[in-house]
């Protein structure tokens, strides 16, 4: 008997929602469409932000550049809104690269019929977020499309920051023996969004964790300049961030499931909906790899910051199984934590 599964194997010829999930399909889109057409030495590094030197920029500092798009539904959710999310998301992509966020631009795609009061609310919220993070929004653009061609507001941003001389963080820098730390509970944002979607009426209203991480990374890097790399686990959650780290660094990662901090409400909602919190998005958390000798100091610095109170050591980087993330389960078994395959939650950031 032939042991192959003979069903047809088709390639996607159209974009499906899973292409935006931050998991394997998103990675395929990059690999098959964007990198072949646009790839270059900087883009190919696949960091959350590009860092490069510019002629005329003195003192050994490098420039960090990032861009991000926001299509969250609903526009206003417990703990935040699309404007706040846009600023935080952009700032965080710079901050986890060790950059000081400086400037932001924003382009707005508005749907015909959007209430101006909503737009004002979003703009004010962006201003507050910018002031908190110490960045200036210095350029913008507005386009309006026919009703039905967008969903209220879409926001696209660019962010510029400066990486001080001598600092170099990279997703490919994790080394065996490093400790893996997270700054707080996981999945709060994704579940908060999901809980206000139609049809899901939870008793507890969970707040999104959306926040600017620039203050936290500043404190961490000054207490512990040896941090190898940081990521903010947005789409695809912690599992995707760590898989990217393991692959880029050519190392294995071993987690202890029992030590991963989770809000009780997130845990319950995930049980109920059949979701794995390791794949649910955060918008104000980071995960980092730190040399073991400095990890206690780093953890202490994180816990002193309001955004790092529930910071925890959740595992270690290892030499074995390069490119693979494993977890010791709560009952003492073992499993592999793979990349998100399809989509888990639609349109959360």
């Amino acid at each position: 008997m032939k042991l192959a599964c003979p069903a047809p194997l088709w390639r996607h010829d159209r974009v499906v929602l899973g292409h935006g999930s931050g998991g394997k399909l998103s990675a395929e889109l990059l690999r098959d469409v964007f990198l072949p057409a646009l790839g270059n030495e900087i883009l190919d590094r696949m960091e959350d932000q590009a860092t490069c030197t510019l002629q005329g920029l003195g003192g050994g500092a490098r420039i960090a550049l990032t861009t991000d798009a926001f299509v969250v539904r609903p526009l206003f959710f417990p703990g935040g809104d699309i404007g706040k999310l846009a600023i935080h998301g952009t700032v965080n992509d710079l901050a986890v690269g060790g950059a000081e966020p400086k400037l932001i631009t924003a382009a707005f795609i508005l749907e015909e019929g959007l209430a101006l009061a909503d737009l004002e609310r979003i703009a004010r919220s962006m201003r507050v977020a910018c002031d908190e993070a110490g960045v200036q929004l210095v350029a913008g653009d507005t386009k309006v499309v026919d009703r039905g061609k967008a969903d209220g507001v879409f926001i696209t941003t660019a962010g510029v920051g400066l990486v001080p001389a001598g600092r170099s963080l990279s997703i490919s820098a994790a080394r065996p023996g490093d400790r893996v730390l997270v700054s707080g509970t996981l999945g709060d944002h994704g579940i908060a969004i999901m809980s206000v979607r139609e049809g899901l009426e939870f008793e507890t209203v969970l707040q999104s964790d959306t926040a600017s991480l620039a203050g936290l990374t500043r404190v961490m890097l000054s207490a512990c300049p040896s941090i190898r790399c940081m990521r903010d686990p947005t789409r695809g959650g912690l599992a995707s961030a760590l898989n990217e780290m393991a692959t880029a660094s050519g190392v294995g990662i071993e987690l202890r499931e029992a030590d991963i901090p989770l809000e009780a409400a997130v845990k319950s909602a995930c049980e109920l909906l059949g979701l794995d919190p390791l794949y649910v998005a955060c918008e104000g958390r980071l995960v980092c790899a730190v040399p073991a000798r400095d990890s206690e100091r780093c953890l202490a610095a994180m816990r002193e910051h309001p955004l790092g109170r529930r910071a925890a050591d959740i595992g270690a980087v290892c030499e074995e199984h390069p490119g693979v993330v494993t977890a010791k389960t709560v009952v003492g078994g073992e499993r592999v934590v793979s990349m998100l395959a399809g989509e888990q939650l639609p349109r959360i950031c």
Partner: protein
Amino acid sequence: MKYVDEYRDPRKARLLSVAIRKAVTRPWTIMEVCGGQTHSIVKYGIDGLLPSELELVHGPGCPVCVTPLELIDRAHAIAARPDVVFCSFGDMLRVPGSHSDLFQLKSRGADVRVVYSPLDAVKLAEAEPAKKVVFFAIGFETTAPPNAMAVWLARQKGVTNFSVLVSQVLVPPALTAILESPDNRVQAFLGPGHVCTVMGSADYEPIARRYRVPIVIAGFEPLDLLEGILLAVRQLEAGEARVENQYSRVARSEGNPQSQNLMAEVFEVCDRKWRGVGVIPRSGLRLRAEYQQLDAERLFEVGGIEANEPPECISGQVLRGIRKPHDCPAFGSQCTPSSPLGATMVSSEGACAAYYLYGRHVNREGAGR
């Protein structure tokens, strides 16, 4: 978390694992019937806590996996119509039919929506009277009562633009089919805890007696599964074959009579085809004659669409516990959850998907994915 953490206690898990080791004197093969149980076993690494004499094989209890190919093709034919809003549980969206899946139909303009309850589909039909709202009513005895409720309610309220495409299946006839199969290896079952919560355990008694096979009705948490395995091993070692209820905190022997009454009001027993297994007599449900005006298969005249399962596909053997997912060379390479070749890779409850999701395709010694 209350009522969950208690059943994931690492110390108790260790004690149960030791007790199982003590009880086992020779090799046994136990099948967990439900996809949810398979998922927990792989997610928590429970098979790694068992002695090498025990083999767990994964049963047919994944509703998405056993829905036959032609029914998926019929669903796609209905969903592609411009006047239809097609509602389904999320798992069903990625299941490949002969030509496409619901996600791809959606990207081509079909109105496909994920609902968490069939009653939401009825609400949708009331809210959009100009559209024909069709709900894909698949599943075992666990989804049958809510699906029956949706049908009953739609008729009560006179919602005429709501219909269901029915593919309901029943567990006990499937167990009989597995045991009757000449290549059967199953010596004991972990029974379906939630199916028994609805239906009770009476239907399992004659199976245990006739085939001399222990059936332990078990839950879905790590300690439920370990305790269920221990009870099954004790029966096997003692030469007993009884129905035993590990999941007594939820499942009662009489089941849930209200749910049973509602199912009987709306559905009647019929022969059903199972994907990868074939037709099993009296193993499914269809709408009773009084509810035929809500039958999407009839309304949209798609009953004639047939499809042939490729005979070499091993997902049928995976569903019957004859083969394991990694016995298939396509597993984890050509066949992954993002481009599934067979049904067992699609649903999160499918054995192949559970193996893949929790990394059973990965060469742990290195080289990675």
